[in-house]
């Protein structure tokens, strides 16, 4: 199987999986779910890292890669932490702090 067709299969199956993952979401979780899903979309860090690795001694490319890594990590770290901050506040009646 060529790399392209393999990648297209991965794309297809990943999309189908994503469609199945979110079913009925209780309204309480709408905001945290959006923020959590948003953090995961920062997975682009992987592309940024690969770009830096490819850069060799090309400084412009290194700068672009580092910038991109910074933006992606801002999305990832900020997203996961703020989601955790929200979810940590949800408690049932009688739960202690």
């Amino acid at each position, binding site marked *: 199987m060529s790399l392209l067709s393999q*990648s297209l299969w*991965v*794309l297809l199956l*990943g999309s189908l999986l*994503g*469609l199945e993952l*979110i079913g009925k979401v*209780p*309204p*309480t*979780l*709408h*905001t*945290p779910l*959006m*923020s*959590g*899903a*948003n*953090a*995961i*979309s*920062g*997975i*682009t*860090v*992987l*592309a940024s*890292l*690969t*770009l*830096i*690795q*490819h*850069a060799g001694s090309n400084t412009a*490319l*290194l700068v672009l890669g*580092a910038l*991109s*890594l*910074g*933006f992606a990590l*801002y*999305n*990832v*770290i*900020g*997203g996961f*932490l*703020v*989601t*955790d901050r929200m*979810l940590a*506040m*949800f*408690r*049932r*009646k009688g*739960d202690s*702090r």
Partner: protein
Amino acid sequence: MTFSMDVFTGAIDLAAVLLLALGIKGLSKVRSARGANGLAAVAMGLAVVGLLIEIRPDPIAWLWIAAGSAAGGLAGLVTARRVPMTAMPETVALFNGCGGMASLLVAVGVALFDAGDADIVALVSIAVSVFVGAITFSGSIVAMAKLQGWLDTPGWTQSRLRHGVNISLAVLCLVAALLLPGDPGGLPLWLLVGGSTLLGIGVTLPIGGADMPVVISLLNSYSGVAAAAAGFVVGSQLLIVAGAMVGAAGLILTQVMCTAMNRSLVSVLFGGALGASAGAVGGGGSEAGYTRITSCSAEECAMALEQAERVVFVPGYGLAVAQAQHSLRELAKLLEAHGVEVSYAIHPVAGRMPGHMNVLLAEADVPYEQLLEMDLVNPEFPRTDVVIVLGANDVVNPQAKNDPTSPLYGMPVLEVDQARQVFVVKRSLGAGYAGINNALFEMPQTAMVFGDAKAVLNGLLSELRSLGVGKAKVAA
């Protein structure tokens, strides 16, 4: 690379995908949500570690990786810690825009400096990644600016002209994308970057602030697509699968948001701002429309509460702006100690994005079982003694049910007019988000308590305490 190393990094990638999927799934259940968020974070960490093991960066690369990570990570940490819960919608928009920017930068970098041995698949992927990344970035930033109140909806964006402008921009992007493989680092790239950025602004700007959650959710899906496209650019299967997963899940989430807000995606994207024209006519807090307003003091309101058996609070964004959630929680506790049955009616769009009010009340330690969804609470209003509306307006407007000429007609609302007594706590008679008068305010069972939500709630607390509420139980 040795065979065993390949298997090792492959196994890490697989584990990362599995954990990511479990994480997304777990995020949609209250009990598992926090753990699931952690799981997804671990998955992300695994994916990064697996990639670093695979590519073995040289010392120079490490230096730049450290610099980028430190800057982005620290900024993320500070933002996540500092941002107030009321600002959650714009924060998600900002984070999302940065994710789009990252994909855009990767694609531009490869196009400019690394396209020598790129095949047609990589070149097409670059075009897609630039296009989606730039739209995600500029669209999210516009969404953030509108939610922050830095940007209004300009009048000209409500004319049909905007469709012409956006279609022209889309055509420009398409032409640039088609030309890009022939000259990866040249003019077509910059045309595509500029065209997509403007297109992102052009499609987001006409959409009203109230519809922004749907836009953010859709843009979040786009950033998944941008990540998957970046995966094709750099040849990472893990990135493709994760990006596709987030992109598809984001589409479902967008659908969920639309359903929660009772809007269709098409009307959000192409219908212009809801009530923008009505707002222009009746805006500016005009009080001319009301004739039969009854207002009352905190004392009268407290007496009604003291005698009630069942009280429902209807919190709106105004409550959060006044930072009155904690006072509300205290009042609810006092009433509960007095034997009153207390619950909170949460409209799907209470706050500024679906689920936002739940977060804001959770911050004030309100147990989430007391937050009742609209479908559950509406049948309960006829047997409710006192309803207190705090900083909510359009979502309790009975005209949405019984006035076909109202711009709100058809929107599901909380039927508080069914309750025996309604108190509306409000600073003035200014119009709500949709810019129209509220028939509830003039109904015979309604009384307005004018003032800042926090001040009124604190007033109610001291009135109730002076009536001896709460003390009796302690003595007994």
